[in-house]
C-alpha cells in the first residue's frame, strides 16, 4: 500500500494514471487516486505486490507525486514490550496513554493474543512520534 502526496501541478495526469495502472491499479482506481490527488494532495492506493515500488516511486516523483510505503502494522505487534520499554513506560502507563486495557496489553506482550491492525498502527505512531501522539490524545484542562 502506498500513500501518495502531490508536490506540484499534475501536468501529465493521464500518464500518471497509466503509470498507476501499470503498477496494478484498475483504471477506475487510478482515476479515483488522480481525483484525490487533485482535490486533496493525497491519495492511498494498493498496488500489485509484484510491482517494482522503487521504479514506481521514481516515475511518480517526476510527475510531482511523492510515494511513501505504508508501514506494516505487524512491525509493531512483535515488539510491543520493546517499544514500551524504549519509551520508559510501565505497562499501566502505556495502556492508559493509548486507551488500552492493561490485561489485554499483557496478553499481547506475552504472545497470547495479537492487537488488531488499527491498534498496531497506533503503537507504531506512538513509537515514531510519542509527544505528538500524547498531545493529540489529550486536551488542555484549562
Amino acid at each position: 500500500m502506498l500513500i501518495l502526496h502531490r508536490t506540484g501541478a499534475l501536468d501529465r495526469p493521464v500518464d500518471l494514471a497509466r503509470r498507476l495502472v501499470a503498477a496494478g491499479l484498475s483504471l477506475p482506481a487510478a482515476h479515483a487516486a488522480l481525483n484525490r490527488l487533485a482535490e486533496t494532495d493525497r491519495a492511498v492506493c494498493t498496488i500489485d505486490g509484484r510491482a517494482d515500488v522503487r521504479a514506481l516511486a521514481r516515475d511518480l516523483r517526476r510527475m510531482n507525486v511523492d510515494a511513501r510505503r505504508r508501514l506494516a502494522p505487524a512491525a509493531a505487534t512483535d515488539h510491543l514490550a520493546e517499544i514500551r520499554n524504549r519509551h520508559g513506560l510501565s505497562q499501566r502507563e502505556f495502556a492508559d496513554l493509548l486507551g488500552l486495557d492493561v490485561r489485554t496489553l499483557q496478553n499481547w506482550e506475552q504472545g497470547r493474543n495479537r492487537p488488531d491492525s488499527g491498534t498496531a498502527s497506533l503503537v507504531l505512531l506512538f513509537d515514531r512520534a510519542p509527544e505528538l501522539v500524547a498531545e493529540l490524545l489529550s486536551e488542555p484542562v484549562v
Partner: protein
Amino acid sequence: MDFSIEILDADVGNTALFTISDGSVAFEVLAEVIFEGSVGTLRNVHVQGSGANSVGPARLIRLCRPVREPLGVQELRVEGATRTSGSGPGRRPRALVFR
C-alpha cells in the same frame, strides 16, 4: 474537420481512457462516462495534450463539440476534474455543455 476518437482503455464500469484528435492536435482524456437518458456526461475529466501548451480551452471546446454525435446523445456535459495548474488551481472548471 477530420475528427477521430479512439478508446485506449475502458473498465467494465464507467471509466474510459480515450484520445480525441482533429488530425493536427490530439488530446488524451480520462473520465467517467455516464449516460442518463439523452444526456451524456464526462465527469472528473483529466486532459493531456500531445505537446506542451496544446491543451487550451478553445481547442478543448472545438474537439469536444463533435463528441456528442458519436456518443448518440442530445446533450453532452464535460465536467472537468479539480485543476492543479493553469488558471484557478484547486478549483473545478465550469462545466461545458454541448447541444
